[in-house]
């Protein structure tokens, strides 16, 4: 860790703050994964870690390397963009498949189908 001594104090403090807030938000999201009761509730918790945690930690990495190498570095923007684009896709697919499985098993906790060949319109309150 010899390179870390090259980082001046005015840069070390924001890097530490970004890192700590990012990892704390990630931890909050993962604790939500344990504590929430239903699967559809749990589906929302990891989005905290995957959006806010990734942005904050990658910003800290960008800032640290930019100060260390004395030039702008945009590598970590790739990670941020990729994670932000893919998180909604994965969680939507997972929710869809869970809903499909719950309907196959005849669970009463999930909303019925409102379209298709045999729509059940009794659950709609329009």
């Amino acid at each position, binding site marked *: *860790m010899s390179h870390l001594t090259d980082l001046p104090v005015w840069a070390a403090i924001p890097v530490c703050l970004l890192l700590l807030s990012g*990892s704390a938000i990630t931890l909050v999201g993962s604790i939500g994964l344990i504590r929430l009761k239903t699967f559809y509730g749990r589906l929302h918790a990891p989005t905290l870690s*995957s959006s806010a945690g*990734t942005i904050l930690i990658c910003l800290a*990495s960008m800032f640290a390397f930019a100060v260390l190498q004395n030039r702008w570095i945009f590598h970590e923007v790739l990670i941020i963009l*990729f994670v932000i684009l893919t998180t909604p896709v*994965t969680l939507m697919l997972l929710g869809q498949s869970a809903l499909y*499985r719950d309907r196959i098993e005849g669970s009463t906790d999930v909303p019925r189908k409102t379209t298709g060949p045999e729509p059940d319109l009794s659950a709609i309150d329009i």
Partner: protein
Amino acid sequence: MSRQILDLGLTAALILLGLALVCATVRIIRGPRAQDRVLGMDTLYLNGMLMAVVFGIRTGSDLYFEAALIIGMLGFAATVALAKFLMRGEVIE
């Protein structure tokens, strides 16, 4: 001075991320149904990726950034494949 601040911050961030990994592992082991386990695995991948980025700051090498990018891509592919599998019973139709 900056060495001590960074030492403290990096170690604390690694400990917090490790606790997050433990939480995701608990959900994988305990998860009542298959979709809970897939969700726990997705979270595990993301937390591991963030840990790789923090290791990259700690060692100052670019290798960890590339590892993090690949972990993120593989995590996305794995979760999408498993979600398709849960829905259809097969991955490639």
